[in-house]
């Protein structure tokens, strides 16, 4: 059974998955994404390095989550996808909808850089 934890530091909030997301975990995962949104940070990362699988509903929820963060003026990214999930995301053409990084550090650097560019352009 998957567990979730949310860490916040500065402008960033990170949701960590401690297991795969299958049918039994979909509702709890949707709740965790809502909690991440409610944290109100402009930058959000979902760390999937602990997840061996994300089912189609979980991927759909992630796409909607990333879009919602952007609608609120923020940036979101996925990090640490396992090879199977990464292949699935690419096959489904979801790379154009979600930012993907190898790990949380890389995602954080990219989001902070993008956030910095946004502020300087305003």
């Amino acid at each position, binding site marked *: 059974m998957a567990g979730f934890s949310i860490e916040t530091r500065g402008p960033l909030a990170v949701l960590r998955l401690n297991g795969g997301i*299958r*049918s039994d975990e*979909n509702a709890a995962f949707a709740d965790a994404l809502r909690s991440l949104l409610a944290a109100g940070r402009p930058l959000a990362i979902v760390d999937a390095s602990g997840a061996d*699988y994300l*089912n*189609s*509903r979980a*991927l*759909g929820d992630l796409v909607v989550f990333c879009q919602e963060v952007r609608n609120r003026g923020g940036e979101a990214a996925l990090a640490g996808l396992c090879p*199977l999930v990464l*292949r*699935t995301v*690419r*096959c*489904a*053409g979801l790379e154009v909808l979600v930012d993907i990084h190898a790990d949380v550090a890389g995602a954080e650097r990219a989001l902070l850089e993008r956030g910095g560019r946004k502020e300087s352009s305003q």
Partner: protein
Amino acid sequence: MEDEQREQAPGAGLDSLRRENLTLRQLVSELGASSDKFLAVATHDLRTPLAGMRLLVDMLSQPGRVAPESVRLLDGLRRNLATIEALVADVLNAARLSQPGDTLNLTEFEFNALVGDVLAGLFPLAMKKNVTLDAKLDETAGVILADRARVGQMLTNLVGNALKFSPPGAAVTVSTAGDSEFAEATVTDTGPGLQPGDKDKLFKPFVRGSAPATGGEPSTGLGLYITKKIAEAHGGLVGADGAPGRGSTFFFRLPRRCAGRPRSSGA
């Protein structure tokens, strides 16, 4: 009288049997060759005009080519074209699998890796239909020696079917398992289930189950037949279970070292 005749010409009887055997072998070989030629011709002569028709439909569909009210007609034409293309592909596939000379391209591969690849390709359809696609891939599925493309085709048929007949909000789960002799894949859905009369005829050609496709997708009635033929070519088996309103379960089991006839190394 008959015993005397047998005693007098046992060698003649055997010779006659050998000649008949040789004649039958030659006939099978000729039939196989003509069947190969038929398939080659059919593949080309059916698919070429279909490809041409598709190109014309795509060109006519470009903005400004036809009146707006005709766009709907073109959509209908495109859907029917897709149905014919799927039927031609399935019929040729089934014919090819039924040939006595059909061979398998045997390689060793990780069973779960193939399942993952197939699922990755079907996620867009699952998301489009709002059906949850889950995987429970057990390590015991291990490595098998089989025709990777054909096994992939079996998985695509079973998972595709489950998605086709599942309503929005339903779930399809693909599980794998294995032991020292077999690897097995099971596809379970929470769709309409199987009617009592369906189970006996599901794997026969041109037979469709009682339930309609939830997205209006076309069905050639050959997918499960092809799946069965591929499994049998490997020395494996397929099966199905399910009750009305309680979802369905389809599975196939393959021997770890396929028993089918491999393609020759010189091919």
